């Protein structure tokens, strides 16, 4: 069956920020994302692939998100997740981080979530691409 819109690729997700300057500092200095601002309304964030996260500056309080709508960033190891959480805790006030969740440990996979100054949620984990490759190869669970 041919899809109605064939040959697509996922190009971007979208978040809001109140102030581009404040948010960019957090994205770059804390999360390690690339950021470029090609137009007044938005900066485009990226890390590790051709897709982007479009951050639209709205100049007022953003619509609060919940952890159910979050963006997940990978680091290289479980130890790096643990260290990242410690660093986030130290930078919480400086970068107006609203909330930092507990460390979640499932075997070799560690993760935690945080809510930034614009109430966007992020997850840091050491899940590798192999995890997703294997899930797609395995097929649907019963």
């Amino acid at each position, binding site marked *: 069956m041919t899809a109605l819109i064939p040959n*697509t690729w*996922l190009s971007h997700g*979208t978040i809001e920020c109140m102030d581009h300057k404040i948010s960019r500092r957090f994205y770059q200095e*804390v999360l390690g994302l690339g950021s*470029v601002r090609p137009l007044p309304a938005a900066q485009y964030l990226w890390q590790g692939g051709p897709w982007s996260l479009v951050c*639209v500056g709205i100049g007022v309080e953003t619509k609060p998100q919940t952890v*159910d709508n979050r963006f997940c960033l990978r*680091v290289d190891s479980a130890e790096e997740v643990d260290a990242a959480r410690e*660093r986030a805790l130290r930078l919480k006030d400086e970068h107006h981080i609203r909330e930092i969740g507990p460390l979640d440990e499932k075997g070799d996979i560690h993760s935690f979530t945080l809510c930034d100054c614009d109430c966007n949620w992020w997850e840091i984990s050491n899940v590798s691409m192999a995890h*997703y490759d294997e899930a797609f190869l395995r097929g649907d669970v019963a």
Partner: protein
Amino acid sequence: MATTQLERTSPAIHTTSLERGTFLTTDLAATRRLMEEVLDLECVRYAPRAMYVREKGHRPGEPLFGKPYLVLDVQEVDTIPNPQAFLNHWGVFVATQSDVDRAFAAIVANKEKYGIKNVQKPKANHGAYSFYFDDTDSNWWEVEHRIVKKQYESLRAIGDQVPV
């Protein structure tokens, strides 16, 4: 030109990939139909009420095998606690401007079948030619085309065009 990637200092968290985004649905099967039959994406249910979505072509032997991809992680819930808005959308890229127009016509013609609510007309905006629609769970989608110099990687190479 203002700040660029090259001027960055070492970040607190050494991330290597923005690899996954998450959203909710009240009907995993319906969302899967939308992903597969409308947007031509690949899905796999990894738990009874959860699935991953990615673009096609990444299986062994396919053209994109080994290349990174963005994953959407969809969780099924009974109700959507925080409905999403237009500025929290997901984007899919198509090859030509004509493809955007064809996609718009196809979406309009199949709205009811796929539980699509609002469909906005295509227009040129922020360097893209695109249109938006939302599904029954308030998840918004943009179907976009960009000429090469306006594509995301090209814009990264140019750097800031507006001071931050």
